[in-house]
């Protein structure tokens, strides 16, 4: 028997217009920039501030005030930024009316990258020739270069792609870095230095951006400082007194009774022993949550942070390099479906 089955045919039109990359013309971008500037002045007037000195941070604050949004995704919230940051950079048409491209390396596909490599290699050859000439004459200057390579880093691949408005592969990027390093090994003049500095970004000056809590003074004039620490779901708050006899009280209980395990007590002693101040400070702390080891780790972090106030900057840096001042980000990994635990899989049965 035949049964008539009704089937609905749904036709969907592919959104051809949206899948093509949108090209923004120069005029369009210029108009957007003008609109942005005018809007910035209007916003400044609305907020009652000076339109001349209205910075981007002020704009962000004003927009957050005027359009409060409860969305969790920060990128989905209303934003008012310079069009350069919003619209992706696009290259102008690279060929003339007759179809001939302007740049001589256009047919390589990555003309900006290859022309940059060409320039760098040209500079390298020039410097080598110059040095050979000097060496032939015997006027080779001594190596008195002490460039500050520590405070800066090379551009990362994303930044280079953004600079050249072109997609690069990893090998291209590594080749580029290798060339620049080679250029650095040779001595070069001021012009080349500046050229190379364009491809370096400064690194965060010494990642010891510790938030130092101010020292408090209680009665009898003794200084003490409080700070918090946490590890794995244990939260601790420690108060370290400047002068004491090395007693540690946790939730009102002595440390020897609270931590019967040697390992935990060693952790408590670690910051003090590291700074040779074992019997010189008194500590009172409260801790909650976590397990035995997590609580010990949390108290250790809190004590180390509190000690920063009583200690020189060098010693703070030593503590940081010993790993005493970083909060441990490791937490329990979740169990995944289809597996027995976080990593353990079910027994594999062949049939």
């Amino acid at each position, binding site marked *: 028997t035949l049964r008539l089955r009704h089937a609905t045919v749904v036709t969907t039109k592919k959104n051809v217009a949206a899948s093509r990359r949108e090209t923004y013309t120069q005029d369009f971008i210029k108009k957007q920039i003008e609109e942005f500037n005018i809007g910035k002045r209007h916003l400044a007037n609305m907020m009652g501030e000076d339109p001349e000195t209205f910075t981007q941070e002020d704009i962000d604050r004003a927009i957050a005030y005027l359009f409060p949004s409860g969305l969790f995704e920060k990128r989905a919230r209303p934003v008012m930024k310079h069009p350069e940051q919003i619209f992706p950079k696009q290259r102008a048409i690279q060929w003339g009316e007759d179809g001939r491209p302007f740049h001589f390396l256009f047919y390589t596909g990555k003309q900006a990258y290859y022309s940059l490599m060409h320039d760098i290699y040209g500079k390298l050859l020039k410097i080598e020739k110059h040095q050979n000439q000097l060496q032939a004459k015997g006027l080779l200057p001594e190596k008195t270069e002490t460039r500050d390579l520590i405070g800066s880093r090379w551009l990362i691949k994303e930044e280079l792609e953004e600079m050249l408005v072109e997609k690069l592969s990893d090998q291209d990027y590594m080749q580029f870095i290798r060339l620049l390093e080679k250029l650095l090994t040779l001595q070069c003049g001021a012009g080349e230095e500046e050229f190379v500095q364009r491809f370096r970004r400064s690194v965060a000056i010494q990642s010891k951006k510790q938030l130092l809590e101010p020292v408090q003074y209680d009665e009898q004039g003794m200084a003490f400082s409080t700070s918090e620490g946490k590890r794995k779901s244990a939260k601790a708050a420690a108060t370290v007194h400047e002068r004491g006899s090395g007693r540690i009280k946790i939730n009102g209980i002595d440390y020897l009774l609270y931590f019967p395990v040697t390992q935990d007590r060693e952790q408590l002693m670690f910051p003090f022993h590291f700074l040779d101040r074992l019997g010189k400070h008194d500590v009172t702390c409260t801790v909650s949550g976590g397990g035995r080891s997590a609580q010990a*780790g949390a108290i250790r972090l809190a004590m180390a942070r509190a000690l920063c106030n009583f200690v020189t900057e060098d010693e703070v840096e030593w503590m940081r390099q010993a790993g005493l001042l970083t909060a*441990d980000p490791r937490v329990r990994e979740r169990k995944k479906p289809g597996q027995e635990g976080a990593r353990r899989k079910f027994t594999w049965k062949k049939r």
Partner: protein
Amino acid sequence: MAAPAVRAAGGWSSLVLGVRPAVLRLPGVTQVRWSRYGPEYRDPKIDKEHYRKPVAELTEEEKYDRELKKTQPIKAAPATKTSSVFEDPVISKFTNMMMKGGNKVLARSLMTQTLEAVKRKQFEKYHAASAEEQATIERNPYTIFHQALKNCEPVIGLVPILKGGHFYQ
């Protein structure tokens, strides 16, 4: 035990541990193991003497290293490592290997009991021996342990060589 799962897509194969998949350290290789720290985090160095050295004694390289270290973020020190004089990395490693089911308390107590028993035996031998032998008897259980480990190390290693279609050791 599980080797880091690294997919070699460009002929590169190397063990790169503890790197987030967002950052490709080598071209053509994707990392599958990850850690909560980013790739720029360095391991902490817990050595009091190393930091207490005066600046004048450092060589150029060390000065450069120190300056470089200041710009790098550092991981937190693990719970098993301290700056205490009583800590021994070999003993800690052995304790971890002895540990079953995460019962570190039991493993560590067993370790300390063992070392204490070794020390007791050595002291008994010491008190029962004559003056010349007393100089040769080793009473520090840590040195005995290290020496025992060294004695257990293999002397020769075998490598499979392919010759004539058969693997010879």
